[in-house]
Structure formats: C-alpha cells, structure tokens
C-alpha cells in the first residue's frame, strides 16, 4: 500500500517539474449587501420556490403543533418553548434506521440558513441531532431563527467553518428531496423527506439554546 502511495506521489512530483505556484484572487462577493428584511424575504421566496413550505410565527411551538401529527422525533436538547403539544414526541436515544422509518416527522432547529439559495444547514448542534433524524422520516420541520439567515453562500460556508474544523458532519438542505432524472422534469419527494416545512422564528430571544 505504501508502495502505491510513494509511486503516486513520485508521479505527481515528476509531472509538476515545470509549474509555478498559483495565487488565488477572490474578487467574488463574499458578503451580502441586502438589509435584514430583504434577506429574510429572499430566503422565503427561494426556499418556497424549491417546494418547501414556510410558516412565520412568533410562537413556533404553536405553529408546529398545527402541522404535526403522529410520532415526532426530537433531540433531548430541544427547548420546551419549541416543543409542540398534542403530538407524541420521541427523544432520540440511538433509534435504529428501521425505528426511524416508523416515525412520521422530525422536528429540529438549524445551524444557519442562506437566502440566496434558499438553504438551511444542519451541523448536529444543539436542537438538531444526528443526520439520520432529518433523513429517514418523511417530514422534516425545521425551526429557523431569523438571526441565523445569511445572504450569500460564502457567508454560509463561513458560518459553518467552526463546525467543519471540529469535524462535525454537515448537511445543507435546499427543499425536499427531488430528482430530475426522468426527462429532466423535477419531481419532489424521493428518498429524503418528501416534505420540508420551515418555521421562521422572528423572536430570537425566546430560543436560547445552551451551547454544549
């Protein structure tokens, strides 16, 4: 195995005998320019465009309760203020994939969101849980704090940098699962959740999740 490594590296070094180092100029837009309200408007418009449902609420628990039925998986750290009543909440304690398949929905928060692309990002932080939770159940309800929405993709990537450096797995989600494999016609709902609901939470003070 190390013979392969040595030979491969030797091939690369031989191939690069003539090259100069390349400097990278980053003249693209790294930071957005829109005001807060426009950032939120754009996020809503773009994530709806890709088939997600958006609900704005100052009381997410109530808004979420109206959406959900049956059994809903959450993480232990999800604050009481975000927990809906009237549904069976199941705290994830290492459910198997088969057990998750029997659950109707997942309710999580997110790490950040991006307006330009209508995306939410999950990094397994408090309120989000492991990746399988938001993958196997057919409905994902995600509570997004307005303060967590950035405008551009470089800003989103920048927000996620500490998680990446810590080695946390990250998923960037833009709408429900979809395919364009048949005649390039977009069909929403394949293997990942067939429905994505974003609850836009206007009041950042209500949700103070302790950082672990």
């Amino acid at each position, binding site marked *: 195995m190390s013979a392969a490594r040595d030979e491969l590296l030797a091939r*690369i070094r031989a191939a690069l005998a003539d090259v100069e180092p390349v400097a990278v100029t980053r003249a693209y837009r790294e930071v957005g320019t829109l005001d807060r309200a426009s950032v939120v408007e754009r996020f809503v418009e773009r994530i709806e465009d890709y088939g997600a449902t958006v609900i704005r609420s100052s009381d997410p628990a109530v808004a979420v309760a109206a959406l959900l039925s049956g059994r809903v998986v959450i993480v232990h750290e999800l604050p009481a203020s975000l927990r809906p009543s009237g549904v069976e909440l199941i705290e994830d304690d290492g459910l198997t994939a088969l057990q998750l398949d029997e659950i109707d929905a997942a309710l999580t928060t997110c790490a950040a969101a991006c307006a330009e692309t209508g995306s939410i990002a999950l990094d397994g932080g408090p309120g989000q849980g492991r990746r399988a939770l938001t*993958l196997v159940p057919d409905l994902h309800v995600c509570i997004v704090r307005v303060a967590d929405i950035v405008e551009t993709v470089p800003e989103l990537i920048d927000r996620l940098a500490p998680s990446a450096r810590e080695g946390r797995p990250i998923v960037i989600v833009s709408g429900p699962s979809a395919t364009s*494999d048949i005649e390039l016609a977009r069909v929403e709902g*394949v293997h990942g959740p067939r429905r994505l609901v974003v609850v836009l939470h206007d009041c950042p003070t209500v949700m103070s999740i302790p950082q672990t």
Partner: protein
Amino acid sequence: MVRACAPFIWRKFLPVPPSRAAARDAAPVVFPQAARAGLANAQLRANLNAATTTIREKRAQVVAEVGDWEELRDAAAAIKDSALHRLDTVLLELEATVTKARGIVHWARDAAEANRIVVDLVRATGADEVVKVKSLATDEIRLNEALEAGGIRPIETDLAELIVQLAGERASHLLVPAIHKNRTEIRDLLRVALDRPDLTDEPTELTAAARLHLRAAFLRARVAISGANFAVAETGTICVVESEGNGRMCTTLPETLITVMGIEKVVPEWRDLGVFLQLLPRSATGERMNPYTSLWAGVRAGDGPSAFHLVLLDNGRTRALADDVGRPALRCIRCSACVNVCPVYRRVGGHAYHTVYAGPIGAILQPQLSGESGQAGSLPFASSLCGACADVCPVKIDIPRILVRERARAVAAERQGLEGATLRRLGRILSDRRRYERAQRLTRVLQRPALRDGHLRWFPGPLGGWGESRDLPGVPAQTFREWWEARERGA
C-alpha cells in the same frame, strides 16, 4: 461534419462490414462509427434534444441571477490550479486531516488496484451487497464488475443510475445517465424490472416506485460506496452533492463507508466550497442549490458510519497532470454544462463516446487519462471546435485548445501505423517532380472507373470514407505542364 475535421485519420471512418464488426466483439469502436447508431435513432435524438434544451434554459436563467459569475469562475479556476500545482502537498494534507478524523486513506495507482482495495474492504465486513451513490470515478474503474466478480452485489441508488443498471446499459450523460430514455421507455423498463405492471409513465409515479424499491436496501445496508465532488485538505471534509437523498442515505446509515475519489478533486481550503457550491449546482442541474449537500470528515461518534475509507485514485490523472496544455482539464467538476451545449453530443448521444466521460470534457479527458491511441484518440475529433463548451465551463477549461492539442497527439500516435507509412510515402511522391509526374500518369489510368464529370466520386479501400464527403478533381487528360511542353515542342 465530424469527418471533415479529421482528414488524416481516414482509416477510422471506414465502415466496418458486419462480419468484422462481430469479430471485434466488445472492442469499442471509434467515435465516427459509433456516432452512426445515435444519428440514425430518431427517438434518441428527440429525447436528447428535449432534455438538453430544458437544462440549457434552466442553467442560463440561474447563471444570469449571479452578478459575480465571472469572478466566481476566475476564482474557481485559480483555486483548482493552485491545488493541482502543488498536488502532492495538498494530498498529504488531506491524508493527515482525514486520518486525524479517524478515516483510513488508501492510494491506488490504477483501476485494478482501486478495485482490489474496495473489494477487500467490503469482504472484510462480511457484507455481500453494497449501496452505491452515483460516482463517475467508480464507473471509470468499472467497480461494479469487480464487485460482482468478488461475489458482492452493487445496488445503484441514484434513480438514473438504477434505470441504467436495470436496463443493463451504460450511462450516456455525466449527470443524467438515463438522458437517452424518455418516460415511456423508463415505464416499460420498471414495469418488468420492479414487477410493477400497474405503473404509468408519470415521472412522479415512476420516482415513487424507485423510492419503494430502494427503501429496504437503504435500511438494511451495511456498506456504502460513494464518490466525492470535493475534498477539503484543510479540514479533511468530503463533499457529496446530490438531489434525491440517496447520497445522504448511503453516507449516513451504513456502518462502513468507502469513498473513491480522483486525486484532482481536492481543494485546499474550507472557504473554497463557498465558490464551488455556487458554480456546481447552477451549472449542473440549473438549480440555485441542489437539495442535499453532505459534508463529513472521517467518522463521528454517534452520527453515521463507524468506519470510513478514502481511496485516492490516479488511473491516468498524473499523465494528464504532466501535460502543460492539457493540465487544466483536471479542474473539471463534472457539472456537464459543456455536454448540454455541445452540438455534437446533442445529436449523437453519450454512448457514441464509449467512455464514462461523454461530451466535450470526455473528448479531452479520456485520451489524456488512457492515451491517444485507438478509440480514445478518435474522441478529440468529435467536435466542430465551436467553443460553446469553453463559454459555459464554470472552471474555465479552454476545451477547444486542449481538443486541438489532443488531436495533434492522436495524429502523432497514429503515425506509427499504416496511416503514418502511407503519409510518409505520399510525402516522398509530392516532394519530387519526376515521382509526382509518374504518379499523375499512373493515376490517369487507375482513376477511370471512379471518374464522373472530371471528379473522383469514390476511393478504393480505406480511402472510401474520406472520399464520401469530398470531391477531388481527377488528373486531367492533359496537365498544364504537359500542355506547355507540347506547345514548346510544337513552336
């Protein structure tokens, strides 16, 4: 059109009689021959035209939204070049960060070595099937065949890959492998393959059938195999960009995850993803962002696989890296924008290329990876050099320039053979007056059966293909020189 571009490799245009074609068996045929099948298939051309027109329009719309598109392209090209120009250092950094995150890094010089590594890894788990995320690198090394030979059943989970696998066909497009099939053809296939005679040709229904079919495979899978869109050296992060959620299923649920990645996929810094995650989805599917982007480093306790293997694949990439003109082809992020705008691809389809990388990028990449002789050497001629591919390329690969370069290398490779010997002889004849005049007199006799209205209408043997689309004036009954000499003598 294709033919006119390549006067010097006429041997390739010889139509092969059925008996010889059968004798060649599975040996891939050169592009101009292979293109005939696609050109003759009206259904295929209609499917391709509809699909590529749709995606070109979608791409144009979402690219127009981005005010700094050109700046992003410039940065992307520079980032890729900066990684390629110190690829040894960047790969060693990736190895270190992945290892630190408790992943295991393997190095593979060629396809056989990569396949052996993967088959051994799967065997060690005791699993007899694997779920696969769509991956061009594993298509390139024919991993599925190696797995099957090793008694392991590969299950393709991307819808289009599944369609192609069930049909026993090959992919015909980098991104939409079943682009050559329309909904009715797919319905007919799934009715039989999934035993669902109830299916209609509605894409939502066909997609739901695939979801049902694959659900059980995802939930029981113990091993998954993926490719990688990007790998970040700084953080050890592997990035898989997808739409259906099959990629998330494969990279999240099984105990063991094996990623096979070409060595050119590495980018130096985490922030580089801020550039590529804008360029790739818009160029590929014409979306602002694909539904799911998975990013992970090694293994994470309590979340996802407990074992992660990264196989770094050369398989000809260092050959491409050594060529200063062709090197930028390794910037490619496999978006397929060049494929969708290519006037040649749009008419002949992907199967004519006989490579995993169909279209303009394949026409430069395949000969670079595998050498310019034979079939791969015919691919750089599958172009009118119109340049549409370079205009849309998000990493600014000058595809026409490399096409011309690869043509030159293909011609040089051909010089070893019959064609080269013939051209050398022709050169001797044309460079000497006496030999030239002797050849004229000989041709005047030999050309008689082929002469119509003073032009040669067909050519013998291997010249036949060359002459099919050309008019060559025959040698006249009296040349100017002969007339002049006769006049001087008469005077």
